[in-house]
């Protein structure tokens, strides 16, 4: 039920507030929700090896895309043209990885209350050394590579046309 609300919310808000929803961003969001909630939670796709990592890859790209939206919202229009594409790509990657780190903070905090989100335990036994780190590091690597793939594409697109970034801006529908 919560999944249904989450998936409908952006569209509902976009219609209600008359805001343009960047299609690429929204597409990645739908893919992520479909994979995480519908296939992952309802149909237990998390049991498929590396399913979780695939989702982190998508979320990395999604967050890097969202970084471009935030960039548009925070930097004045005339300033955007003067920012080099390499810096924008680097910023998008850094933003996505930072959000990934925040997610791992959340998992770590939950694990303090007896959960096993960071997979530091198997069959009721604590894992040791690198084995306990595998899930967390794998998630961060996946976030990074998802963001990097997006950032490389963004770099070449922005080098060709600096207005490409505007595809990620939320703006009022006229």
């Amino acid at each position, binding site marked *: 039920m919560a999944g249904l609300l989450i998936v409908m919310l952006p569209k509902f808000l976009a219609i209600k507030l008359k805001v343009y929803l960047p299609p690429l961003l929204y597409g990645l969001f739908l893919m992520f929700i479909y994979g995480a909630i519908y296939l992952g*939670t309802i149909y237990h796709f*998390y049991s498929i090896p590396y399913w979780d990592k695939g989702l982190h890859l998508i979320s990395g790209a999604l967050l890097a895309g969202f970084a471009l939206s935030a960039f548009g919202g925070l930097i004045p229009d005339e300033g955007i043209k003067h920012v080099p594409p390499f810096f924008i790509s680097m910023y998008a990657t850094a933003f996505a990885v930072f959000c990934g780190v925040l997610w791992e903070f959340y998992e770590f905090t939950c694990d303090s209350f007896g959960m096993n989100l960071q997979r530091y335990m198997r069959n009721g036994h604590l894992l040791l050394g690198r084995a306990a780190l595998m899930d967390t590091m794998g998630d961060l690597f996946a976030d990074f590579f998802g963001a990097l793939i997006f950032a490389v594409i963004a770099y070449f697109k922005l080098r060709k046309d600096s207005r490409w970034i505007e595809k990620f*801006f939320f703006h009022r529908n006229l």
Partner: protein
Amino acid sequence: MMKNGSSTSEKALNVFLWFIVISMLVSLILNYQNGFDGCDSQSSRGRLVFGSGNRGRPADRHAA
């Protein structure tokens, strides 16, 4: 600013959105019909242990 909505991609996204909404509704209805046999049966059998994660990851069966 960009032109409002390239119609093809927006249409494709709307189709995808409705596909997800309908799939979720169908699985919700099926779950109700089967007495939550699908996703909640594990917890009723005591397999979904607290500490297995709240992201729908399958429970660590040996830990139960």
